[in-house]
């Protein structure tokens, strides 16, 4: 949360429907530029009442220090499995959640670029807020993704550390 500024918003059904062509992965690590609309478009089910998209954006400063850019790295094969696992956990907790897509970008990201998009759909709005909150917290907790902050005078790998001691996450 220290490095990112978060925006979340509800999108209308009409805007979403136009984006449905072309089957793509629901859980993906990519070097491509991200767009909330594109990820929301991966949710193909028309019988839904609410979609939420959570967008993580690279912030220009942290702890008063100016960030030049971020370098993200992932263990992509495992990270995609972990994103799928997070989606399974969400469906277990919130039975009304229908579809989930989580896409994380890696490589060099400039200030203001999107690092992650999480899109969820449900018949009704209530649970999408809790579910998307859970998704981003869990992603930060267990997905094998790393980020290095690069400043004008140095660089550092940033993490809040493992949150649970011992055992499997």
């Amino acid at each position: 949360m220290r490095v990112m500024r978060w925006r979340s918003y509800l999108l209308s059904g009409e805007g979403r429907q136009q984006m449905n062509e072309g089957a793509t992965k629901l859980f993906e690590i990519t070097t491509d530029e991200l767009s909330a609309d594109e990820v929301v478009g991966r949710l193909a089910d028309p019988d839904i009442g609410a979609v939420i998209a959570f967008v993580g954006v690279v912030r220009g400063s942290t702890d008063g220090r100016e960030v030049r850019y971020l370098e993200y790295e992932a263990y992509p094969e495992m990270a995609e499995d972990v994103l799928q696992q997070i989606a399974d956990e969400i469906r277990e907790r919130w039975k009304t959640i229908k579809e989930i897509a989580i896409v994380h970008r890696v490589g060099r990201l400039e200030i203001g670029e999107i690092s992650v998009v999480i899109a969820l759909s449900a018949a009704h709005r209530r649970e999408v807020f809790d579910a998307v909150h859970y998704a981003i917290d869990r992603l930060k907790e267990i997905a094998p993704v790393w980020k290095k902050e690069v400043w004008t005078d140095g660089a550092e790998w940033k993490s809040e550390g493992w949150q649970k001691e011992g055992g499997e996450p």
Partner: protein
Amino acid sequence: MRVKVRLFGAPREALGRCEIEEELPSGSTVQDLMDLLMEDYPALRSHSGMIRMAVNRKYVSLEAQLREGDEVAFIPPVGGG
């Protein structure tokens, strides 16, 4: 038996490579592999306290047994999002 070890983030930079192959006696555990890595690659020692291990893309405990051809990963504290 041989296993492949993948490295990411700070330990990858510390070692200057993203993959290591290690030869181990059969029946070895993840802990045995850790011990061997720390011996062979002193640059990894300062990271070992915070590392979680994965085998074939799943987090495992240090007691987990390794098999020929396993893909092991050295997972430093994550920081996505």
